[in-house]
């Protein structure tokens, strides 16, 4: 009896028909809210062990089983921020002294992304020599696409690692990733070197060590005209 109000004016439906309709509405709502035209077609997935490790590292205690949020330490929902986790393709370098990692980022045309925070997660193995200093210098290089490894790379950061025990280490690369995305490139090439007597403790065999596959995490949000305006005013 309420014209113009769909929730009141719907005629009674068969239970199955109502369920089918609600499933279609839910699917459409999920796709709309995630800005997807259709469901992604996943042909190659990341190894489950790598995925679980990364998610455990990132979200322990933040997302409950049912998807509801622990609101501490998350972005305010009005910011519409989101996080990207990207796993590295691992390549052999010519020089062999650094692990070469390639990350792929595709941006929609005309879309501009602001990187709020980003870290590279690397698993460093412990030193095999117990008499050695447990601290080791690790270096991350940005290498230019198409360039010869070693000749066309820039040092992004250097950090001392504690390698008495095998463990995960993070390298902040917010500015590097922002510059990369602003440049409209697609493939980010990084090289990581943790050299101990010619042996790189940060390199890994992708086929046998999937749980420790390096990954990159970026907390990002879409730039819009409004935020650009606010930035200029400040």
């Amino acid at each position, binding site marked *: 009896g309420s014209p113009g109000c769909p929730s009141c004016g719907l005629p009674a439906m068969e239970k199955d028909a109502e369920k089918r309709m609600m499933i279609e509405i839910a699917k459409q709502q999920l796709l709309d*809210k995630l800005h997807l035209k259709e469901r992604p077609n996943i042909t190659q997935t990341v190894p489950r062990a790598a995925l679980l490790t990364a998610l455990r590292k990132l979200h322990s205690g933040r997302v409950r089983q049912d998807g509801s949020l622990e609101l501490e330490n*998350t972005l305010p929902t009005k910011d519409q921020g989101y996080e990207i986790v990207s796993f590295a393709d691992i390549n052999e370098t010519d020089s062999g002294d650094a692990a070469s990692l390639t990350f792929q980022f595709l941006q929609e045309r005309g879309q501009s992304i602001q990187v709020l925070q980003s870290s590279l997660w690397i698993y460093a193995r412990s030193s095999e020599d117990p008499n050695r200093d447990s601290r080791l210098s690790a270096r991350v290089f940005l290498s230019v696409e198409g360039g010869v490894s070693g000749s066309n790379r820039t040092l992004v950061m250097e950090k001392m690692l504690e390698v008495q025990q095998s463990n995960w280490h993070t390298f902040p690369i917010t500015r590097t990733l922002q510059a990369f995305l602003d440049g409209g490139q697609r493939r980010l090439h990084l090289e990581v070197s943790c050299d101990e007597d010619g042996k790189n403790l940060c390199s890994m065999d992708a086929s046998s060590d999937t749980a420790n596959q390096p990954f990159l995490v970026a907390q990002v949000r879409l730039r819009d005209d409004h935020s650009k305006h606010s930035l200029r005013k400040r």
Partner: protein
Amino acid sequence: SLRCGDDVSVCCKRDFYIKFKDIQWHDWIIAPEGYHMNYCMGQCPQHLSGSPGIASSFHATVFSQLKVNGINTAASSCCVPTERQPLSMVYFNSQHSIVKTDVPDMIVESCGCT
């Protein structure tokens, strides 16, 4: 806020849960396992109009006065969500990157008449 049952015909919240496995979407949605969408349905007779959504507003006061005095406002009241919660999702996007995002206003928590 009422929860819909067999004998409830006025505006209420109906629980509705979709398991992603049942609709073959679990291959690209990593977490959560399903979606508690829920929705509102039912009649909004005139005496329920404006509850609880706009009860304290000036507009509601005027509207109540019109109802008390039996003036037909020709306005229809609608059963709508009055409270929603965000949903946190981890999924593969079209470029096969893993994305974690908190989508606002996804889960209907309560319903009321406009």
